[in-house]
């Protein structure tokens, strides 16, 4: 028997590969987006610090930019550095 595929309808689901489920800054789900965004995913990405704590990129940028001295990780208070 020979089967010919005429149409293909693929469905995928995605999730961020983070240890927590919510952003420690805005308390929204990582798979959702920060309060300023409307669409999760590429529009509102996650970012990891050297300490391995993850936040919405927009949230941690707001925190880093609001600090006058060396910014610390909101979770562990180590110096905040973006994971290279």
């Amino acid at each position: 028997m020979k089967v010919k595929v005429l149409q293909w309808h693929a469905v995928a689901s995605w999730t961020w590969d983070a240890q927590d489920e919510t952003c420690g800054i805005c308390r929204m789900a990582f798979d959702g987006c920060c309060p300023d965004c409307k669409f999760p995913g590429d529009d509102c990405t996650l970012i990891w610090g050297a300490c391995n704590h993850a936040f919405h990129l927009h949230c941690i940028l707001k925190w880093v930019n609001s600090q006058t001295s060396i910014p610390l990780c909101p979770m562990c208070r180590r110096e905040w550095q973006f994971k290279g």
Partner: protein
Amino acid sequence: MVDVSRVQKELTECNRDSAISGVSIALHDGGSSISHLTGTIAGPQDTPYEGGTFRIDIRLPGGYPFEPPKMQFITKVWHPNISSQNGAICLDILKDQWSPALTLKTALLSLQALLSTPAPDDPQDAVVAQQYLRDKSTFLNTARYWTEAFAKSDSTGMEEKVQKLVEMGFPEDMVRSALLSVNGDENMALEKLCSS
């Protein structure tokens, strides 16, 4: 702008287990502003604040949660790190040690911990701190009295009771300690004063 959705989540989360945690938050005076709140803390056990309910004025600055909430005791409290005059609080996480990962609930829990462990070397109220360091028993008595007089709902009218008994001719300090020892019961205090 205050992050409204975060604050709403915080209120729900904090009040869910307030019976266990001993802290709760409500809109200030039942008002409608999400940036003016009132917190309550149950006085910790085995401290002179035990049995009291302490109210905290909470104001959220526009930059919250990137700036710390402004907290101040509404209920008068006798504690080295809290102003006996205006309720101002000396606590690092409400100042330069604030982190946006902290919440109103964790801040109130920190205040509860502060009530349990005063730091007299970094005082907000120098008079209270001096007394704490030099005369601990007077400190404990005063703190207990303030809890009795200001932090208990059934203690309203304490000053009136004191005044009434003083007018009967008893010395004020004896009246206060008598009232304190019987949890503010006027008749029992009178009995105690008469028999001493």
